[in-house]
């Protein structure tokens, strides 16, 4: 259904609760509804219309409309539609009914809204802190417009601890993380083990939350944000910078020139290649198979070199600006890229053949970390995790962006939803990516690299963008603002959703399988966490020990430091 049809359907069904709507394009829909009807409408969209849940966003709109804003984003993949259900909440009562009852995937997003913006979701099944550290004082919500970005508030309590639930009877508690050889980034999974079987798990993460969204609203401007966005993640940076600029371009109705779109596509696919090759190596390392780990990284290295030649850096491409891209693909780079792809394809075929027939690997990965199609729908899982369960979703085809509407490629699905299926999906996606890059190189026409933006961007416009990261859908929500910076920017990385599916995947499995099950979603905690306590003073990004941080904060609280 096109945007207008969905709107008509909602208006017909819910009448006056649908207050106002914005249809900026055929594939975007913003519906403002009465707060009391939000849960019912969300349930209808998720259940009856069969939409996929994407994210919930909370924003402090008080300086502009005097109210708080809540948005629930959904995707109708078959109809190529991204839609958002919005509601404005009164300033003195920022409460709304929780939709986690009807949309279980919204669990984390609503907890985050409560932590960061102070919008309470009444009736949430697990209303514990998600993002803010344990000692953070209550009532101070960082994303509110009246809270400074560069100060820790008074009342930080270093002794306060997170209240975990009770372990199930007969289980022993095994802490997995925050320090673990398999995890590149800190996260804490509190496993409840019975012997070698995992019976339950509680997650406490967001240890690398860095405050990026707050910085974008206060200290940075539109064209600074892409450089920071690509540092959200250590592997999929280009995805976030492209998704952000696309969201802003969508809000401001700007269309980058065709060559820029092709270049964005090529770099996104190069990123997918290096990410998938890295993941295969990492998965083999987790399984103790270091030879394949080394080989995957050896095969991957030429891609990093060619990315370095094109953009000036192996991974942080610094590619996007609002309206276009910064780097061009010269004819020499094009030739070299083609050569690299030929060699890569040949070598990867050898690896793919070897791996798919390898019974030793299959023994460790079949039937492990299973997430079936039902769980995919309930938890809103995305990316290879979803495709390995047979769910056919891919933003490149469902919500085409950049130059994906002009190239042909197949969406790789698998069956079984276990780690082996995910391995095969990723291995095969490499070949599809190579195909896309070759088509782009053929079809690219000479032209300008960026749009000349003539005026300031209009304020108060909404923009949504979904980009298929190597791990799944990366969704950005932007409200444009005054002063050359956005009013609100919400980043939903794919791992944000996939992590919510992990407890289900590891339940009743063995501990030895936990690491590979977690690894199979290709977790990127940096993408998920996004918080940065930017220490403006020293500029250094030190890792503080808990005691050091507590001491520093006490000093600040006592006014000894400005």
């Amino acid at each position, binding site marked *: 259904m096109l945007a207008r049809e969905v709107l008509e359907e909602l208006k017909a069904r819910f009448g006056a609760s649908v207050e106002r709507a914005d249809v900026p394009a055929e594939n975007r829909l913003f519906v403002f509804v009465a707060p009391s009807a939000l849960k019912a409408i969300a349930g209808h969209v998720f259940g009856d219309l069969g939409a996929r849940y994407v994210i919930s966003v909370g924003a402090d709109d008080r300086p502009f409309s005097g109210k708080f804003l809540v948005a629930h984003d959904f995707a109708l993949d078959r109809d190529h539609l991204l839609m958002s259900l919005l509601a404005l909440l009164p300033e003195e009562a920022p409460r709304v009914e929780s939709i986690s009852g009807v949309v279980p995937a919204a669990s984390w997003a609503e907890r985050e809204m409560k932590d960061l913006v102070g919008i309470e979701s009444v009736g949430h099944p697990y209303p514990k802190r998600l993002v803010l550290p344990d000692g953070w004082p209550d009532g101070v919500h960082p994303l509110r417009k009246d809270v400074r970005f560069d100060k820790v508030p008074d009342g930080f309590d270093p002794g306060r601890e997170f209240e975990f639930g009770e372990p199930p009877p007969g289980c022993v508690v095994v802490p997995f993380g925050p320090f673990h050889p398999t995890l590149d980034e800190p996260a804490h999974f509190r496993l409840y083990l019975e012997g070698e079987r995992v019976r339950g798990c509680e997650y406490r993460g967001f240890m690398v939350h860095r405050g990026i969204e707050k910085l974008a609203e206060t200290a940075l401007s539109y064209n600074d944000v892409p450089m920071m966005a690509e540092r959200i993640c250590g592997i999929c940076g280009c995805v976030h910078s492209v998704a952000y600029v696309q969201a802003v371009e969508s809000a401001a109705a700007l269309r980058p020139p065709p060559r820029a779109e092709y270049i964005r596509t090529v770099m996104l696919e190069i990123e997918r290649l290096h990410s998938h090759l890295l993941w295969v190596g990492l998965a083999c390392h987790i399984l103790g198979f270091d030879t394949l780990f080394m080989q995957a990284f050896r095969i991957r290295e030429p891609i990093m070199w060619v990315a370095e030649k094109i953009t000036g850096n192996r991974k942080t491409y610094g590619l996007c600006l609002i309206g276009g891209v910064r780097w061009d693909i010269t004819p020499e780079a094009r030739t070299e890229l083609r050569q690299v792809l030929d060699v890569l394809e040949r070598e990867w075929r050898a690896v793919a053949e070897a791996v798919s027939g390898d019974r*030793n690997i299959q023994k*460790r990965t079949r039937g492990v970390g299973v997430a079936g199609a039902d769980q995919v729908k309930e938890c809103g899982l995305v990316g290879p995790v979803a495709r390995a369960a047979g769910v056919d979703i891919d933003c490149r085809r469902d919500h085409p962006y950049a130059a994906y509407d002009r190239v042909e490629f197949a969406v790789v699905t698998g069956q079984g939803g276990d780690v082996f299926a995910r391995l095969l999906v990723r291995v095969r996606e490499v070949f599809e990516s190579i195909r896309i890059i070759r088509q782009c190189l053929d079809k690219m026409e000479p032209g300008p690299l960026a749009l000349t933006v003539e005026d300031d961007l209009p304020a108060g416009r909404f923009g949504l963008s979904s980009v298929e990261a190597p791990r799944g859908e990366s969704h950005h929500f932007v409200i444009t603002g005054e002063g050359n910076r956005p009013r609100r920017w919400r980043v939903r990385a794919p791992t944000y959703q996939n992590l919510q599916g992990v407890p289900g995947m590891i339940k009743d499995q063995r501990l*030895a399988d936990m690491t590979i099950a977690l690894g199979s979603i290709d977790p990127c905690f940096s993408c998920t966490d996004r918080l940065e306590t930017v220490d403006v003073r020293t500029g250094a990004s030190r890792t503080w020990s808990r005691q050091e941080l507590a001491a520093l904060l006490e000093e600040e609280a006592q006014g000894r430091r400005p």
Partner: protein
Amino acid sequence: MARDVPLAVLGALTNVVLVLALSPFFQGVLRKLTARIQSRQGPPLAQPYYDLLKLLGKEDLESGEVPLVQRFAAYLALGSILAVAGLVPLGFRAPLSGAGDVVVLIYLLMLSGVCTLVAGLASGSTFSLLGTSREMMTMIALEPVLAVAMVVGVLHARSFRLDAVLDGSVYAAAVPASGLAMLIVMLFAFQAFVGRVPFDLAEAETEIMEGPLVEYSGRKLALFKYAQMVKLVVHGALFVALFAPFGSRLPFPLGFALFWVKVLLLVVFVTLVAATHARYRIDQAIRYYAALLAVSFGALALASYGL
């Protein structure tokens, strides 16, 4: 006779020194060969010597539950496997072979395994306990295979004496079926005895953070690592003595060299298997050992009938 004892002791010390000097070299060969399969340059062959020296000089943090027992476990680990070295022929007749019999050998080998258990239990951390339980399961399933191999040798040699058993007794006059069966079983089990991939679950670094050794550092860790290296060589020497004794009658330099060439070939075999496999899970490994145990009991039955 009175002169034999100091000579025997001196001979045992020679064995110990020989093993201590050579085992890091074999470890170096293992690492270098693994690197080549992985398209890397790899560390120099002498790297394990440097690693041990460095570890010996590092700070020894006593962070486990019972540090006294941890110290005891570290020294015992190296000590027990070196005691085995004294009993095993290393290209020449074992100097202490008159001092004990097969039972002592089996006991000492099991003791070195128990040291890992004690090490993990004394550390008391969650991950070390997990590793200890895995090691326990492995020992229960695997040590009998070694014992059966020895007993097959005993049955054929008709003696418990080490110098009789460890002299290719499994073959006696001809090549018996039980001998062949045990050879194949031991070849399949060798990887597990020396604790390398795919059977290094007790110390799976990516899953349980080194398992029993997680709370060890500095000198104690050096001792454990050394014990692991020595174990590789000693098990190799045992295997060669029991199942591949060809050429042991050659005069000193040749026989000695041939022996060590055979051990080197075994190390290469271990490396190739380790480099090309993913780690097994404990239940998969136990099933594998159980199958090996079944075949070895079959071989034992055959041996008892003189086959």
